[in-house]
């Protein structure tokens, strides 16, 4: 399997070189390109060696996405952990839940801690992958009550929303798409559109487009037939069903579509760092809330150190650092004390944003994802 994030990082580096060298002569350009290529393999070595680690001390292992995600984890969680304990964190990338499942099945868990992506957290707990947290090591008072969604089994980590994002060049004024009903309205807002190739939260969007308000009490249990009937109406107007985060970013950076449902952090990165002329709509965003959590793996090679690591990840300051890097919001509400308003208002858990979002009910989804994924894929082919 190819590593999306490494390629992304490579393309970023190439893009930077091309920008820097605009207007240089051929010889100067080649020299600069050669330098970039020569330093590229060194990057990993350098970032790895910045931290002075006691070679004999035990280390812990985790798995996650590569690229910017890894860098953010390093800054927010790993560096403070290493500073406190002298232990290193081994990082396996890219994140693949199937691999973790294989380790569990084989009875050889190689990871100590994990932050499973969105619905993978309740899934991991259901599969019995986690072990109980040791509150004698983890300082409970540093956490806020909403972080205990999973009781003794996990500490809620970051928040993500999948939002409607629109092209500001096309709709610069006040008359721009503001809801899923607008996304569905191809007459009022013509232009190519993109949705995620994943059954959730597309069913939720479809129902909101059909007039159900962004209120979990009214939207769940989902009326699946009604949702698919609503999706039928927008299907012919969807140019692309995207599958990865970097694809989402490419779609708005190249202005391939005018309307898109995408992850808020990816959108903010494209808008602020890569000049995509787009705007996030927080209204009716699919908000993950406290679904994502750090867990300690059952059968972890180093459970004691893992608990010490858990004492870092839920705290306000590390979560604020992570949010500043990737725009995924903290669950620890005290983290907002550390965040400047400019960053805070880009985050899913920022109260004004969260209040207008739809809080996803993954308890409803958990047992239905597989059959509905098949139904959704079949629907795509028809």
């Amino acid at each position: 399997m190819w590593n999306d994030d490494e390629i992304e990082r490579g393309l970023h580096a190439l893009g930077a070189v091309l920008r820097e060298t605009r207007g240089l002569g051929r010889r100067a350009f080649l020299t600069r390109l050669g330098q970039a290529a020569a330093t590229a393999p060194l990057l990993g070595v350098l970032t790895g060696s910045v931290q002075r680690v006691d070679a004999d001390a035990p280390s812990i292992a985790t798995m996650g996405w590569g690229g910017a995600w890894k860098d953010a984890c390093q800054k927010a969680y790993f560096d403070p952990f290493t500073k406190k304990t002298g232990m290193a964190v081994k990082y396996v990338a890219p994140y693949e839940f199937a691999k973790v499942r294989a380790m569990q099945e084989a009875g050889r868990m190689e990871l100590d801690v994990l932050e499973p992506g969105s619905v993978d957290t309740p899934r991991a707990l259901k599969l019995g992958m986690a072990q109980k947290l040791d509150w004698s090591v983890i300082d409970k008072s540093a956490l806020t009550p909403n972080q205990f969604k999973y009781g003794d089994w996990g500490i809620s980590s970051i928040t993500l929303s999948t939002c409607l994002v629109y092209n500001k060049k096309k709709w610069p004024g006040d008359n721009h798409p503001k809801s899923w009903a607008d996304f569905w309205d191809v007459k009022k807002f013509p232009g190519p559109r993109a949705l995620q190739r994943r059954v959730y939260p597309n069913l939720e969007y479809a129902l909101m487009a059909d007039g159900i308000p962004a209120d979990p009490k009214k939207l769940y249990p989902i009326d699946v037939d009604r949702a698919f009937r609503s999706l039928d109406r927008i299907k012919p107007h969807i140019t692309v069903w995207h599958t990865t985060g970097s694809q989402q970013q490419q779609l708005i950076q190249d202005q391939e579509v005018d309307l898109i449902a995408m992850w808020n952090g990816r959108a903010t990165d494209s808008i602020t760092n890569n000049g995509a002329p787009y705007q996030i709509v927080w209204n009716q965003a699919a908000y993950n809330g406290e679904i994502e959590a750090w867990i300690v793996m059952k059968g972890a090679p180093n459970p004691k150190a893992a608990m010490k690591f858990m004492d870092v990840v839920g705290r306000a300051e590390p979560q604020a650092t992570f949010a500043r890097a990737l725009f995924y919001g903290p669950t620890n509400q005290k983290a907002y004390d550390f965040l400047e308003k400019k960053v805070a208002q880009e985050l899913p858990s920022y109260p004004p944003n969260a209040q207008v979002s739809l809080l996803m009910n993954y308890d409803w989804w958990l047992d239905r994802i597989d059959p509905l994924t098949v139904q959704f894929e079949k629907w795509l082919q028809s």
Partner: protein
Amino acid sequence: MRPRALAWLLLGPVAVWNLVFFMLPVAVMVGRSFDAHGLSLVHYRNLFTTGLYVSVMLTTFETSVLVTAGCLLLGYPVAYLLATSGPRARTVMLVLVLLPYWLDYIVRSYSWMVLLGRMGLVNRALIDLGVVPEPLPILYTRWSVTVGMIQILLPLTVLTLYSAMLRIDQGLLHAAAAHGASPSASFRRVFFPLSLPGVYGACLLTFVTSLGFYITPALLGGRKDTMISQLIVTVSTDMLDWSLASAVSVVLLVVSLLIVVVYNRFFSIDRLWGGSA
């Protein structure tokens, strides 16, 4: 050492390698596809009754046929030129054929997005030249998947054809010319028939390779251009249903093997690798 013993000794390492890293995992996969708390055909029944897998399999075949035809049409003339030109020109052409082959699939697929996108090079050129008023929807279609895959597989087709054409005895062409055959007649009646084993072999290799494509249709295709590997990934990594994923993979494997067997029966692909017809 007796030649027979030597042959076994030489084959040994690769046989062991294949056994441990290929045959064994495949056997595990086949076993898993029949497993549902005991021996069962439930995954296969699922697979054939859901409709999804069969329709995606058909798309996979359709796309692979298109890609194979495209590669053959574009690749044959190139291979012919390679086989008939002098050593210098041949080296230059070979490098040009191989250069894209060394580039990663994903990079090449992404490049097609830059070319074919709404604001891509092709659309911008067409609009600036006044050919079309609005960008054409060329990306995320069967067409863009086919074009991307042809570009990726073309070197494979060309090299297979070329190596078969190299074995054609140039003396026969000279003889045809000496007996008054025009260049086109000698191509039609001598060179082309002799190149057919290469054509059959190249078609088979290209076709079977395209059956397993994943990245290119995922990046360049629309919803109805899904190929079977994409579904296998969804079923195994999103749904974690490894038995069903195994069953789909086994069907793909069996179908590919059947194609090879039937094909071999009619076209005798052994000839491609120097066996006698």
